[in-house]
Every structure is written in C-alpha cells, then in structure tokens.
C-alpha cells in the first residue's frame, strides 16, 4: 500500500491519527470560512433575483447544500460503520461516531431552512409529503444512532449496535433523493443533478456549489476535532503525553 512512499496504515492507529488531525484542522477550518464567506456573498449579492420567487429563493444557498450534506454524511458514516464491522476496527467506529452529530446538525438545518422557505412560497411551514417526511426520518435516524451509542456502556457493543443501525438506515438515503421522482410531492424536483444540465442561472449554481464545498470543509474540520476528542476519551493510555500514576492507569482501564 506504499505506492506514494507514505505508509497510510500508520494513520489508522489512533495514536498517529490524533496529531495528524490536529495539524489538519486549521487548514480545513480556514478553507470552510473562506468558501462559506464567498458562497454567501455570491448568493446574496451577485446572484440575480428569481423570476417567480423574488428574493425568497435565496435560502436555497443554505438549504440545498445542507440537505446534500445530510445525505452525504449519512452514507459516509454508514460506510465507516460497515468497514468497522467488517474489519473489527475501532478507528472506523470512531469515525462513524464523530460524523453523526454533524450529519444530524445538517439534517436539522435543511429541515429548518426548508420550513422557512416553504411558508412564503408554498404557503405552509410543513407538509407531510414524501421528501419532507423521509428527511425528517433521517434526522430521527441520526438521533437514534447517537442515543443508541450513548445508552450502551460496553464500547464494543455500542460500536456494533450503532453500526448495524447506521447500515440498516442507509436505505432511506436513496428514498429521500428519489422521492420527488418516484411519487408526486409538493417539493419541487432536483435543479442540479448528475444527469441533466442545471435548471438554474450559472451564478446561482456557482454559489450553491461553493457553499457545498464550504460545508464539506466545515464537516471535515469538525469531524476531525470531534475525532480527537473521541480518541482521547476512548484510548486513554497511561503512557499518553505524561507519566501516569497507577491510579490513573486503573481509571483508564
């Protein structure tokens, strides 16, 4: 695996990953700040008003990237959980654990901004259509995974139970994404997709993609920071950092 001259597996050990994450966090945080700043500027000052919704549509620059991230992060979390189950690897479970709160935050943000967008355009804060309901279920999945992990004291069992939960829940992601195509919904279809040219003005798409990149950088920075906490919390080793007393060793075990 050393085709780049770097032993990547070195970083799969928490002891090596902890300082690496610490070095990477400032870079990703700075990138997130710059990209979100630029994205919001383009979205609010450069992008034109919409022909039917006026300025109300501008919430799309937060809503759509947040909704994308909520789904991306779930898939990534489930992938780490599956890897953890397959390899019996603690760091994979830790990654899944570190991603969950950020995913839940973006899901909540997508629901909140969607609600704020729905009132002026549709005329309702909330409707029980397939898109909105499946996204709400995703929020409950995130919360359920976090709670399930927290409710089991034995770390190995907590890891495995929440990983199975995360993997089972991954079926909801394609349901959310395709809900507007499979069923008729109040929610409009996708403006930007892999298969068709965007159905929005170019500056609007730019703002949305820059915001998405910014949210990615933010997610990575926050996940790494949380990962460091998780590592320290779970891998308290007596030889870590300072000379530990016998009492501290006993506590860590």
């Amino acid at each position, binding site marked *: 695996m050393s085709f780049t001259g770097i032993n990547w597996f070195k970083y799969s050990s928490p002891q090596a990953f902890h300082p690496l994450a610490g070095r990477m966090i400032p870079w990703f945080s700075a990138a997130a700040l710059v990209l979100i700043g630029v994205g919001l500027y383009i979205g609010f000052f450069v992008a*034109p*008003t*919409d*022909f*039917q*919704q006026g300025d109300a*549509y501008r919430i*799309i620059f937060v809503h759509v990237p947040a909704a994308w991230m909520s789904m991306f992060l779930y898939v990534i979390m489930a992938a780490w959980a*599956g890897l953890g*189950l*397959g*390899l*019996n690897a603690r760091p994979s479970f830790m990654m899944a654990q570190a991603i969950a709160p950020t995913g839940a935050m973006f899901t909540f943000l997508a629901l909140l901004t969607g609600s704020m967008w729905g009132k*002026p*355009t*549709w*005329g*309702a804060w909330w*409707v*029980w*259509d*397939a898109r909105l309901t499946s996204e709400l279920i995703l929020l409950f999945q995130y919360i359920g995974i976090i709670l399930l992990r927290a409710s089991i004291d034995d770390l190995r069992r907590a890891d495995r139970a929440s990983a199975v939960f995360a*993997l*089972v829940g*991954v*079926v909801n992601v394609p*349901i959310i994404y395709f809900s*507007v*195509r*499979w*069923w*008729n*919904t*109040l929610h*409009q*279809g*996708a*403006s930007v997709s892999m298969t068709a040219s965007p*159905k*929005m*003005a170019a500056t*609007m798409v730019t703002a949305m993609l820059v915001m998405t990149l910014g949210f990615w950088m933010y997610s990575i920075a926050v996940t790494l920071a949380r990962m460091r906490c998780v590592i320290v919390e779970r891998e308290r080793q007596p030889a870590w950092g300072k000379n530990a007393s016998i009492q501290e060793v006993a506590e860590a075990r």
Partner: protein
Amino acid sequence: MKPRHKRFILIGLGLIALAVASMLVLNAFQSNLVFFFTPTQVANAEVPKGRGFRIGGMVENGSLTREGDGLTVHFVVTDLAKRVPVTFKGILPDLFKEGKGVVAQGQLGADGTFLASEVLAKHDENYMPPEAADALAKAKTAGAQSSRTLVVNPR
C-alpha cells in the same frame, strides 16, 4: 476465505436483502405515498371516496375568477388531460398564479367541483433572473412544459 471477507459478504448480502425488502414495501404503499392526486385520477374515480384528499396540477390559464366578497375564488386544476374545477374561500399563497403549479386539500362535491379548504402553491425547480424568464417566455410556444415534476403525467 478470511473471517473478515466473510463478514463483508454478510454485510453486503444484508444490505441487498434490505434494499429488496424496502423496494417491495414502498411498492406496496405506492398509493399511500403520493401527496396529491391528479385530475386524471379524479376523472377515473381513483381517489378516496367519502374523505378529503389533495389534488395537484396546474392552474389553467384564464380560469381564475373572484366572487364579490373578494375571498371566494374559482379556478380549474388541469394536468393537461383532464380538468377539475375548484372553489376555495381564503387567502391564496403569494406564488399562486395561472399557469403555475398548485396543490389543494379538500373534498369532491357532488357536482364534481372540488371544495378546497387549503391551497398550496407548487413551484418548479427552475430558477432564473426575470429577464431570462421573459426571453424564454417569448421564445417558447404556449403550453410547452418547463418542468417534469410540476404537472405529473397521467399514469
């Protein structure tokens, strides 16, 4: 085969089984998952009887009329195949317009008029500056559809 390969195969098989199961469940609940019924479904009597439901489609051009009280409105919802006249007393959402999408909740009257208790505007996924929209409107012949999800094709 190493134990970890076995575990990955098990996880993969589990996910496939789960995907198949959820596809079957979603298929079974297909009719319950739709948010609204189309005018064609209303015409074919495929809508629930005796209870409220939602109809969705496009507000037919030139069909919007207001009564003297300023609150009661009449309009026609169409999916370009069938039409359903709708009566609604209340405040319409800002984006409610002729030629645009609408979803109305209510009950079908005996005379075939849909008595709506709530009207929601359904906008499409196209966003553009007003100038571009004007140019597009001039270039486009009337009746052409700009969105695949605004008016659901009759099935």
